[in-house]
């Protein structure tokens, strides 16, 4: 029963996350509405408002339908892998339909923009502020901040090495700690090296906005790396002490706490950057735009611009960053995510069939 409630809770979180992400498309983010870059004076245009209100009705209805579709989880009570499999299919279908819906209204708004020739600049022009480019190495936080998480991760491996209860379960945990630390360092590196953005004709404004962007996201990487190293240390320490009797409960409790802490860390970085941007943009005479609406694919979720060297770009809808799948780094991250999901799905399918007695253990 606890397991069923946990899965229902997970499904509700997904609905709330997708619904709130969709809601961000209804409100202007600078001059961007529903992922389309528009001149500020047309944001209150009646045709634009009409498209937005229809979009609101459509995505709210979709959320309601998928809320009802969570009810079969109750019928699979006791079959954890079967619920996991159902939930995975439910997530895929929900995200797929939602992105189709967002894409449909995005195209409607884009067509309206095209009909009225509300162009915002050109995609062919690459802008570089020489002063910002020169100073960009000073914007990220120092990579030396990765030393404490590395020491903590090594300490968690030491605990396993010197523990009397060296269960098989411990090693994947320790190795995961190292892999994740490396992953966060890679993300830090990508943010540090990513190209600078020209927001306006003022070098002071461009410098400040790029400084805040790089500093906040690299700081976020360091904080998350530190938290995850503490998470793995706590996990190994408690498991070693507990002799794995209550392993599942310990892992669930600590993982849940870790996930809950991560959300405000990311949101704070995102909100600080957006706050500074909105404040600074009021001070400039002329904003610089790149009209790259058509580089946004899969319902404004994925960025695909071969002329942009950045691996991560800020999302036009929702919070945080997304990948530029036209870049080498973006392709690599996309492959890692798809493979990780495929492996998880493979395990879920196999275990579900095992639970239902349709296959036998290989060994």
């Amino acid at each position: 029963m606890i397991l069923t409630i946990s899965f229902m809770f997970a499904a509700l979180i997904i609905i709330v996350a997708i619904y709130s992400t969709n809601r961000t498309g209804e409100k202007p983010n600078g001059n961007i509405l529903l992922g389309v870059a528009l001149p500020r004076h047309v944001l209150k245009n009646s045709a634009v408002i009409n498209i937005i209100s229809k979009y609101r009705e459509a995505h709210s209805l979709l959320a309601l339908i998928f809320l009802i579709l969570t009810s079969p989880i109750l019928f699979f009570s006791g079959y954890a892998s079967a619920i996991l499999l159902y939930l995975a299919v439910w997530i895929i279908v929900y995200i797929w339909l939602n992105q189709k819906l967002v894409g449909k209204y995005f195209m409607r708004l884009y067509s309206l923009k095209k009909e009225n020739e509300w162009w915002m600049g050109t995609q062919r022009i690459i802008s570089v502020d020489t002063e910002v480019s020169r100073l960009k190495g000073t914007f990220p936080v120092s990579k030396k901040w990765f030393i404490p998480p590395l020491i903590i991760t090594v300490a968690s491996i030491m605990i396993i090495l010197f523990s009397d209860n060296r269960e098989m379960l411990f090693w994947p945990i320790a190795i995961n700690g190292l892999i994740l630390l490396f992953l966060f360092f890679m993300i830090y590196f990508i943010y540090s090296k990513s190209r600078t953005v020209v927001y306006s004709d003022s070098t002071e404004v461009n410098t400040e906005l790029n400084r805040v962007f790089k500093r906040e996201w690299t700081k976020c990487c360091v904080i998350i790396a530190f938290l995850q190293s503490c998470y793995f240390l706590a996990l190994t320490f408690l498991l070693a002490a507990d002799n794995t009797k209550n392993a599942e409960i310990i892992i669930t409790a600590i993982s849940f706490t870790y996930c809950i802490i991560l959300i405000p860390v990311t949101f704070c970085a995102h909100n600080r950057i957006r706050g500074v941007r909105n404040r600074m943009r009021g001070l400039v005479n002329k904003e610089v735009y790149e009209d790259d609406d058509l580089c946004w694919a899969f319902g404004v979720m994925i960025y695909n611009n071969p002329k942009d060297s950045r691996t991560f770009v800020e999302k036009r809808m929702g919070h945080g960053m997304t990948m530029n799948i036209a870049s080498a780094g973006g392709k690599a991250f996309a492959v890692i995510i798809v493979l990780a999901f495929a492996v998880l799905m493979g395990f879920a399918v196999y275990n579900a069939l095992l639970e239902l007695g349709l296959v036998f253990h290989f060994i």
Partner: protein
Amino acid sequence: MIIKLDTTSATPIYVQLRNQIVMGIGRGELKIGEGLPTVRQMAEDIGINTMTVNKTYAILKQEGYIEIDRRHGAKVSPKVDLSGRFREKVEIELTLLIAESSLKGMNRDDFMKVCADVYSKLNLSYSGGTA
């Protein structure tokens, strides 16, 4: 200084970059002694190969617009060259431009007016080799 490069232009990127930096120095947007991004930083931000930026910097250094220091990177040093070699270059390019303008029906007065307008629009800080 904000550099704008057109990726679909027939003019190669390294030439566009060179021209933009020269115009930036001329307009005073890049001051004497002001640092430029390193080759790597510039290449990362434009999204091009470091060799392309290297080529631009080498040309600018050869023309005397920038100085390259191993420790401090590139910086502006506008030694505007009005020696015979540069004047010869200007004359060759102007001859071609005047001939083309004449073929397109532009008379001498129109050509001179366009030259004067463009010169005043550039709002140059350095004129005749003086700051």
